[in-house]
């Protein structure tokens, strides 16, 4: 009996093994993963191999253009832009993945409940989700950050909560497809509890959807964290952060000091593009 019930689960698990090999073979994945790896190394060890301190101010050498000593020039306080870009990977790579993880866990649980239990709960939560989604995520996020005060924890919670309904919606439709299948009817017939059906039967089968959703949302999380920092909701102005550094220095582009904003901007662009190359590769392989 248990053999038959668990069969679909193991089949999916087995089917995923070769597909990972297919993912690894895609050039887009390799390029994306390498760029991502570079930024992860910078986030972890950036301060130990950066040529200068990311914090040290040289007030006699402010706004210096890129040179052999300072590859990306120096900013308005004479700090080395190259070192700040390397070390700045840390704040965004800490907040964005944790926020995405929170949103994915909560969203998956909510999606399972909405899709499987349905009924009035589904209708009420569906309306609430619609109402929240009617306002752009960035605006919702900065309203809450203004209200609660800026900190890494606030950012993780706010972005995680904004992602929850979005991920729940995707998981919900995947669950509704699964609910029609025979193995669930069998599980219900032998009297398995609701919780067991949702987490032990349905969840493993919607995992591919959850995985794709996680990688796609991670790109959006980076986007949102960077945008919030740019709007001035960054955590601490002296901590190197790409978005905050752009916010602090975009006013002097007109004076010709373009390197202070351009290089952090390119760093953000490379990171989001890398994540999307990875997400796109996984999505395409899973879609067949």
């Amino acid at each position, binding site marked *: 009996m248990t053999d038959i019930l668990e069969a679909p689960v193991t089949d999916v698990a087995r089917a995923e093994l070769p597909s990972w090999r297919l993912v690894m073979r895609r050039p887009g994945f390799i390029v994306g993963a390498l760029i991502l790896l570079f930024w992860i190394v910078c986030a972890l060890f950036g301060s130990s191999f950066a040529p200068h301190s990311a914090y040290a101010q040289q007030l006699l050498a402010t706004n210096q253009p890129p040179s052999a000593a300072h590859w990306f020039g120096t900013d308005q306080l004479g700090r080395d832009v190259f070192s700040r870009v390397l070390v700045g990977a840390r704040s965004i790579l800490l907040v964005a993945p944790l926020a995405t993880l929170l949103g994915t866990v909560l969203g998956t649980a909510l999606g399972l409940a909405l899709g499987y239990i349905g009924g009035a709960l589904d209708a009420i939560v569906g309306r609430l989700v619609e109402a929240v989604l009617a306002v*752009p995520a960035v605006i919702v996020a900065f309203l809450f950050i203004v209200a609660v005060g800026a900190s890494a924890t606030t950012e993780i919670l706010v972005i995680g909560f904004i992602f929850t309904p979005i991920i729940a919606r995707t998981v919900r439709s995947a669950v509704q497809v699964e609910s029609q299948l025979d193995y669930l009817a069998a599980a219900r017939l032998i009297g398995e509890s609701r919780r067991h059906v949702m987490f032990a039967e349905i969840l493993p089968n919607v995992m591919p959807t959850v995985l794709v959703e996680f990688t796609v949302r991670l790109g959006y999380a980076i*986007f949102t964290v960077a945008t919030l920092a*740019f709007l001035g909701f960054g955590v601490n102005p002296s901590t190197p952060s790409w978005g905050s550094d752009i916010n602090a220095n975009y006013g002097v*582009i007109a004076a010709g000091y373009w390197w202070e904003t*351009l290089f952090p901007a390119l760093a953000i662009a490379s990171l989001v593009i890398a994540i*999307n190359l990875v997400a796109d590769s996984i999505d395409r392989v899973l879609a067949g």
Partner: protein
Amino acid sequence: MAIYLLRRLGLAVITLWLLSVIIFFAGQVLPGDPGRAILGPFAAQSAVINLDRQLGVDRPLITQYWTWISGAVHGDLGISYQYRTPVEPMLVSALANSAKLAVFALILIIPLGILGGVLAALYAGRAVDRIISLSGLSLATVPEFVSGIVVIVIFADGLKLLPASAYPGPGASFGTQLRYLILPVVPLVFEFFGYIARMARAGTIEALESDYARTATLKGLPRPVVIFRHVLRNSLLPTITVIATQVGYLIGGLVVVETLFNYPGVGRLIYNAAMSKDFPMLEAGVLTIGAIYMVATLIADLLNTGLNPRLRTGVAT
């Protein structure tokens, strides 16, 4: 059709009401006493209490919500804490400015996105398709302020071709306004080109593979006729829906673009209101954006139903 319309409208009104409740009570979490925020830290406590009474913020929340929402329904959005003037005139002029920017952006985005998507579909799987799809995806995921800075550095600072700020000042001619809006529009175009191209591509590929397209080809119609008369008519349906739902995201992009290019639109208005805890202005701005999004989604649905008769009788929620 009439019943369907009423149903959709009813749902939109309920959602909007929920949004107003969420905004109002979320706004109450904002720290600080409005009277204190206006008068500053050195004002006497008695003056602060007086002003709070005058503003009505010392009453129970439910009463405050009722006053606010019944005023809003009649078009009275309250008095801005920050400027001490009614909210609507400022909101209306900001909306007009944002609309200029958004319309200019849409005029560029829609044809470019559709053209890109159809081209990608016609050359599906080949280099043209890969380039369009990948660049669309990459551009869409780069935050607006990043692409905005790149274009400012190149075109305003480097080549000195265009102004780096978006607002020429009051009373500028149409041509001047347009010239000032060219750079701010670029990040918005980047942001949405990919989405629209993706939808247009998917729709076109589906239509190309359909039986009626094959029949048309097999009965000897020239390829342009098959594409323009048979394929595109059907393939652009989902694209229209996407364009309308993207209007909401476009407004989110405006907050960033208007801040970067120093443009007095509704995005910057909301941003400034949040920064200075100007609660009536903030509520009015966010509610207006929500309403615009609802209307856009509703129009998308109606267009979709109007163009696809099969949906009219279906279960629509």
